C-alpha cells in the first residue's frame, strides 16, 4: 500500500491538497483538503447591501464575474426587484456572463487541461515558418514555458502532427481569450471586476456601436469554438477513449441554471434559463431544484460539530482546527442528504435530460461519434466535452440576445433598500452552482453567505461518511504507474477545481533580502 499526495503548489496558500491511498494499483481511498472559505460574512456584516457585488467579486480570481451576477441576483431578490429588471438589463447581464464563461472555458481547456493530453515538446520537431510555433519551440528549448510543460510522460498518445497543431491552438487561445475579455469590457466597463452589474439592472447603456463591437468579436470566437476548440476536444477523446470510463464520480449532478431568458418570474428556481435548473443522476431522471434541500455538514471539517447540518442561511462558522478526524477547511454541502457534483457537466446533463432540443442534438452527436451512451458523460472526458458544448451553446445563443437589445431604452430600474429582507441569488458559475444568501436588517447586511462550486466538488466526507465528488471520482481508479500517477491529475483537473481566497504574495529566491530592500 502506498500513499500518494498531490500537493503541487507552494506559492498559493490554502490550495487544494489531494491525498490518495493506492493498493495493488487501485485507488483505495482519497481525501480532498482545502483552505477555509471564511470571513466573507464577517467582512460584509453591517455594510450597505450594495457592497456585496463589489466585495464578493474579490473572493475569486477566476470567476469574479459569476460572483457579481450571483450577488446582484441576491440583492434583486432582497430588494423585491427580481421580476422587475428591464429586458435590456437582463440581456446585458447575460452577455457579460456569457463572455466570462467563454473566456474561462477556453482558458481551462488550453492552458490547464490540454497539457494532460497534448505533448507540447513535440513542437521541437517543427520545421516550418510559423513564427508563433517557432517562438514556442524556443521557449520550450530554453525551459521558459515551465510550468506549462508535459507532466504525463509515458502516456501521450497524439501524433506529432496533432500535438504541433494543438500547440499552435494553445497560443491562439490566448488571443481568443483576450477577445472574450474585450467583449466583456464593452458592457462590463472594465475587466477584471466589472462595475456594470448592479441591483436593478446594469449601469451601461445599450448603443448600436456597442452591439456591433460585441458581435464581431463574438463571431470570431464562434469560429474558434466550432473549428478549433470542439475539434481539439474530440481529437483528445478519440485518442484517450478510456477516459470516458475513468473518474465517473458520485453520479448525481446539480445545476442552478444560468442565463435568464425571461425576467418576469421572481423565482430563480423556476424561471426559464438557457441552461436549465435541476438535478439529474445516471438514470437521467430529472429532479426539480429546491434550495431548501441544501445543508452543510462539518464532521470532517475543522469546525465545531454543533454547526453541522445547517442550511446556508443558518450557517455558522466556528473554526476548530485540529478537530479529530477532520481534514479540510471546506465544509461538505449536500443536497437532500446526498452527494452532488456541480459544473458544466451538470448544466449540460440537466438541460439534455429536460429535452432541450439544441443541447440534445449537440450531446447526441458527440455520443454517437463515440458510440457511447449518456452514462459516458459521467467521466473525465464527459466533463471536458460538456465544458466545450456549453461554450458553444451560449456563444450560439448570444447573437439573438444582441438583436433583442433595444438601444436607447433603459437597462436599469430605480429602487429603495428595504429595512428588513431576505435574499437569495442562484446562478451557475463556470465551475458550477453558485449561491449567495443575504439577510438585511436596518438597511444593512446582517448576514451574508456564499456556497461556491468547489465547496461542492472538493468537499470532504459528510456526517454519514459519504466522500465528496472528487474523492468518489478518484476512488477505484486503476493507477498504471505509481511513480507518475497521471490519472489523478487528469481526474482532478477535469473538475476545473477552484479554491477561494488564494493569497497572491510573491516569494523571492533564496538570496539576502538586503539586496532588494529599498524602503
Amino acid at each position, binding site marked *: 500500500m502506498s500513499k500518494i499526495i498531490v500537493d503541487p*503548489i507552494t506559492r498559493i496558500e490554502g*490550495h487544494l491538497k489531494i491525498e490518495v491511498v493506492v493498493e495493488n494499483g487501485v485507488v483505495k481511498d482519497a481525501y480532498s483538503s482545502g483552505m477555509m472559505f471564511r470571513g466573507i460574512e464577517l467582512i460584509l456584516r453591517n455594510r450597505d447591501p450594495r457592497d456585496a457585488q463589489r466585495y464578493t467579486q474579490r473572493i475569486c*480570481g477566476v470567476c469574479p464575474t459569476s460572483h457579481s451576477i450571483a450577488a446582484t441576483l441576491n440583492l434583486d431578490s432582497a430588494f423585491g426587484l427580481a421580476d422587475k429588471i428591464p429586458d435590456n438589463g437582463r440581456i446585458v447581464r447575460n452577455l457579460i456572463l456569457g463572455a466570462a464563461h467563454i473566456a474561462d472555458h477556453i482558458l481551462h481547456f488550453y492552458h490547464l487541461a490540454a497539457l494532460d493530453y497534448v505533448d507540447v515538446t513535440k513542437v521541437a520537431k517543427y520545421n516550418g515558418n510559423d513564427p508563433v510555433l517557432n*517562438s514556442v519551440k524556443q521557449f520550450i528549448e530554453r525551459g521558459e514555458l515551465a*510550468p506549462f510543460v508535459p507532466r504525463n510522460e509515458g502516456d501521450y498518445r497524439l501524433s506529432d502532427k496533432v500535438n504541433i497543431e494543438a500547440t499552435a491552438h494553445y497560443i491562439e487561445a*490566448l488571443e481568443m481569450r483576450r477577445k472574450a475579455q474585450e467583449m466583456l469590457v464593452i458592457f462590463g466597463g472594465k*475587466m477584471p471586476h466589472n462595475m456594470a452589474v448592479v441591483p436593478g439592472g446594469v449601469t451601461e447603456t445599450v448603443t448600436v456601436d456597442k452591439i456591433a463591437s460585441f458581435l464581431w468579436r463574438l463571431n470570431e470566437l464562434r469560429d474558434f469554438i466550432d473549428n478549433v476548440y470542439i475539434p481539439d476536444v474530440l481529437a483528445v477523446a478519440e485518442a484517450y477513449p478510456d477516459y470516458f470510463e475513468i473518474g465517473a464520480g458520485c453520479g448525481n449532478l446539480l445545476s442552478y441554471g444560468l442565463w435568464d431568458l425571461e425576467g418576469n418570474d421572481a423565482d430563480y428556481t423556476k424561471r426559464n434559463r438557457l441552461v436549465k435548473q435541476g438535478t439529474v443522476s445516471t438514470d437521467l431522471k430529472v429532479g426539480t431544484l429546491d434550495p431548501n434541500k441544501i445543508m452543510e455538514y462539518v464532521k470532517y471539517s475543522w469546525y465545531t460539530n454543533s454547526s453541522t447540518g445547517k442550511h446556508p442561511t443558518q450557517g455558522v462558522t466556528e473554526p476548530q482546527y485540529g478537530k479529530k478526524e477532520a481534514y479540510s477547511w471546506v465544509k461538505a454541502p449536500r443536497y437532500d442528504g446526498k452527494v452532488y457534483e456541480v459544473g458544466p457537466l451538470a448544466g449540460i446533463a440537466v438541460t439534455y435530460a429536460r429535452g432541450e432540443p439544441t443541447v440534445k442534438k449537440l450531446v447526441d452527436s458527440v455520443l454517437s461519434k463515440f458510440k457511447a451512451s449518456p452514462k459516458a458523460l459521467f467521466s473525465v472526458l464527459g466533463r471536458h466535452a460538456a465544458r466545450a458544448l456549453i461554450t458553444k451553446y451560449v456563444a450560439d445563443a448570444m447573437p439573438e440576445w444582441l438583436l433583442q437589445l433595444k438601444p436607447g431604452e433603459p437597462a436599469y430600474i430605480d429602487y429603495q433598500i428595504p429595512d428588513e429582507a431576505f435574499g437569495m441569488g442562484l446562478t451557475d458559475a463556470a465551475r458550477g452552482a453558485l449561491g449567495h444568501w443575504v439577510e438585511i436588517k436596518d438597511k444593512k447586511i446582517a448576514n451574508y453567505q456564499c456556497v461556491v462550486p468547489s465547496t461542492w466538488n472538493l468537499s470532504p466526507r459528510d456526517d454519514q461518511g459519504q466522500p465528496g465528488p472528487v474523492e468518489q471520482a478518484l476512488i477505484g481508479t486503476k493507477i498504471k504507474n505509481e511513480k507518475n500517477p497521471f490519472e489523478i491529475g487528469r481526474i482532478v483537473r477535469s473538475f476545473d477545481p477552484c479554491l477561494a481566497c488564494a493569497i497572491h*504574495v510573491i516569494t523571492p529566491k533564496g538570496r539576502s533580502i538586503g539586496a*532588494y530592500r529599498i524602503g
Partner: protein
Amino acid sequence: MGHIESARSSGPLYQPKVAVVGVGNLLRGDDGVGVHLIHKLAEMVHEDWVEFIDAGTVPDVLTLLDDKVGRLILIDAANAGGEPGTIYRFGLEDIDTCPGMPISLHDISFFDNLKLVSALGKRFESVVIIGIEPESTEFGLGLSPKISAKLPEAASLVLDEMREFLKQSTEVM
C-alpha cells in the same frame, strides 16, 4: 486619466507607455496592498503615458494590455522575510517563477501569464516588481496601520520608477 480603468477601454488615441499593475486580495488585509496603492497612485497621477490597473485577484490581465506598454511595474505583497512594511524592488530574475504544475486555474500566476504573453510575441523592455512585506493577511478589509503608513513612501518609489522609464525613453527618442 482620472480614474482606474482596465486596458483597452480608453479609446484609440490613448497611448500608454508604462503600466502599473496592482495585484492582491482586498478581502485579506495587507495582501491587498498592491490594489490600495494603485488606487492612491491613480488619484495622484493623471498622465496619458501611464496606465494603472487594479488586477485584484485576477493576475492574468496582461493579454489585455496596450501593445505600446514598454515598462511593466508590478506592485504586490511580498513575503521576503523582512520587517512588516519593508519595501523591496525585484527584477524578474529574483522571483521563483516556476514552482510546479498547476492543478487549478488559481495556480496560474502573474508570472506564468507573463511567460504566456511572451510566447505571443509580447515582450516588455523592463519589468520591475515593487514588493511590500505584509503584517497580516487574515480576512478583513483595509491595511494594518504599519503598512498603511508606508503607502506614501511606496507611492513615491513607484513614481520614481515611472519617471526613470520616461527619461530613458525620451533619451532614446
